[in-house]
């Protein structure tokens, strides 16, 4: 049993924390959010420079040979700062699909430019009707000679508006809610037949609706041709759940810190409001919720690399439930304990609350995962 970081991991954690402390004040974040991209290309370059974008890829592919723990450390720091950059979309989701699903040529062609920050990717998977069900894919991939032709609509594509390339899921066989028959295709975002509608999300990030009309995909851009991409998609979404759990823990710990500071400094009735026992106990319950969440973040991180898919998915669902519940409690209570000031756009706290709310929705909310877990053979045993 060992919860310690290696020396390299500690260095990585220190460098990302330092960079964000220097560059990601809440005021700066507002500026980034108001820019046309909605995030900072300058910071993206700096993330590449200090190795954040490449660390999760193997050295053979042009990365630095890190794994889930490195992704966790980066995501937690991003959560604390409410970083807006397309890390989850490009590195964790699309990058993960290429890392685990790409052939040698595809990895060689893409990973170095992902790690260097030049190439932005997004994963165009969800559809209007699919909800949280990863197997629900209506978009079609018709074979035409050696190529494929894609048609369909994709929604809520995280950072899909700025991506250079999209990884699109589409069905070459089966009915819409069949588990078999799904493939993954690499599509240039500016290719003929791709149209995108970008928009801000509730938490200040970006997403897009994507329409595919007779989009041609050459054989070299097919990631999982045999129509059996679902296990890969599930695996990468599990990694993304682990990463976003860490992001949530970062945001929760920031919300708690801000609240505790406020309890110490805000005075009413001539005393700091932190002297009221009702508020002390509430803040203590927030600590309990955060610790439980942090533990499950670690479980999700370690289990995201588990080869046994059933065991992996149970642990991931359990983490998603705990994170969702803790995030809701901490988000709501941190606003409550701030009073009116917690309700304003000008103050960071409300944005932490909104990000936490949206993280719960991504990849299945707490209820969805609780139901899934309840249908398994049990978590404890």
């Amino acid at each position, binding site marked *: 049993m060992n919860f310690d970081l290696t020396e390299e991991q500690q260095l990585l954690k220190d460098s990302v924390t330092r960079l964000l402390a220097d560059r990601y004040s809440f005021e700066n974040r507002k500026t980034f959010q108001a820019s046309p991209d909605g995030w900072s290309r300058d910071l993206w370059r700096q993330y590449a420079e200090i190795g954040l974008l490449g660390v999760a890829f193997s050295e053979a592919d042009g990365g630095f040979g890190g794994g889930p723990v490195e992704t966790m450390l980066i995501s937690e720091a991003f959560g604390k700062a409410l970083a807006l950059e397309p890390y989850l979309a490009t590195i964790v989701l699309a990058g993960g699909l290429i890392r685990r699903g790409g052939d040698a040529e595809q990895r060689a062609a893409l990973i170095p430019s992902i790690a260097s920050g030049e190439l932005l990717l997004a994963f165009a998977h969800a559809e209007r009707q699919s909800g949280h069900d990863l197997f629900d894919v209506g978009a079609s991939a018709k074979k035409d000679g050696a190529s494929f032709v894609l048609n369909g609509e994709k929604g809520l594509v995280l950072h899909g508006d700025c991506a250079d390339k999209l990884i699109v899921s589409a069905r070459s066989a089966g009915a819409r809610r069949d588990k078999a028959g799904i493939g993954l295709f690499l599509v240039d975002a500016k290719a003929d037949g791709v149209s995108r509608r970008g928009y801000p999300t509730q938490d200040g990030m970006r997403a897009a609706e994507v329409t595919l009309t007779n989009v041609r995909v050459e054989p070299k851009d097919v990631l999982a041709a045999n129509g059996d991409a679902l296990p890969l998609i599930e695996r990468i979404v599990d990694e993304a759940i682990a990463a976003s759990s860490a992001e949530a823990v970062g945001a929760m710990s920031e919300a708690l810190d801000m609240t505790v500071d406020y309890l110490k400094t805000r005075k009413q009735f*001539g005393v700091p409001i932190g002297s009221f026992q009702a508020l002390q106990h509430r803040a203590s319950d927030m600590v309990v919720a955060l610790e439980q969440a942090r533990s499950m973040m670690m479980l999700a991180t370690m289990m995201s690399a588990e080869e046994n898919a059933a065991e992996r998915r149970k642990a991931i669902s359990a983490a998603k439930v705990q994170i969702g519940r803790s995030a809701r409690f901490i988000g709501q209570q941190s606003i*409550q304990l701030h009073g009116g000031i917690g309700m304003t756009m000008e103050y960071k706290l409300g944005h932490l609350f909104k990000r936490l709310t949206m993280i719960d929705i991504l990849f299945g909310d707490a209820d969805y995962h609780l139901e899934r877990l309840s249908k398994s053979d049990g978590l404890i045993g």
Partner: protein
Amino acid sequence: MDLRFTDDELAFREEVRGFVKSNLPASIKQKIVEGRHPGKDDIVAWTRILNKKGWSVPHWPKEWGGTGWSPVQLLIFNDELQQGGAPEPLAFGTSMVGPVIYTFGSDAQKRRFLPRIANIDDWWCQGFSEPGAGSDLAGLKTTAKQEGGEWVINGQKTWTTLAQYADWIFVLARTDGTVKKQEGISFILVDMKSPGVTVRPIQTLDGGHEVNEVFFDNVRVPLENLVGEENKGWNYAKFLLGNERNGIARVGISKARLKRIRELASLHVYGERPKIEDPLFRMKLAAVEVELKALEMTQLRVIAGERNREKGKPDPASSVLKIKGSEIQQATSELLMDVVGPYALPYQSEREDGDRWNEPPVGPDWASTIAPTYFNLRKVSIYGGSNEIQRGIIAKAILGL
């Protein structure tokens, strides 16, 4: 004990229901049902429709436009309006400053202001809270000094709801700094057009503009705008806050939202089945319905008890209604989040007048207000005396702790 309404009360309910049905403009109703914010024009238009019927201030004394209805009738009336998709009346006029004026104001103030409140010719806002005085309202610092036959007001108010539309603001200001803090406060009416009044918007986390900061820089106000006696303002403020009891539980609004939740949950938007067929969701929905039913009964008991109480004295039971009512409102907004699912994510701003941009919506056309409503309703456990303050009142006033 009899839980049923009398035949007369049932007939009255039908009358109100019918009136709302045939007189509430469809465009206004649609906004309310969809969870969008009514514009100033909507609130004014509806208040005037009610006023024409003699129903805009039913709880007031008859001589100032009240109806003389019983507390049960008033409850039925509010409930029907809320369930029927009517915008809420502007409480700052009808439930706050109006009752203060007819109870403590001068005859001239009554004649001047009350008819204009009933017809919403004046838009009122509430200038109580300050940056340093929220829960500890009596700690307020805004001052009013007599100078050359006028009040001169200096200071800052904050969280002032809809001050951007206001013609008038009622202000609590310190008129004596040498006595106990509750004993040096006065209640003054200020014309928002007075030189020296500045309104600065505060955006709430859902992106809306409903609150403001209001600054007073040597604002000169006629002496006659003092309500009641100098330095008695705290009593009037307590009276006013106690008066909010009527409708504080927002039972009708929560009922309307639960109805909408059932409707939307019956649509098959995503996943394997409509949300309403999901057993976990149904249990959560039923649990909130149980809470709401209990609250409705509690509210009826409080209203029934009203007959035996000294008029105008705040009832600590209103703290029970406030706590539960706000928690239920928040719970309904969480159920809506469950219903909409992933398409809560896109942010689509509303125009000032509450109409949407011309672009087609991203996702289902009813989805865009759901996350903002969830965010926005965090306020209901903060304002009007936070739920922590309400618990303190229960502990003290009901339990004697």
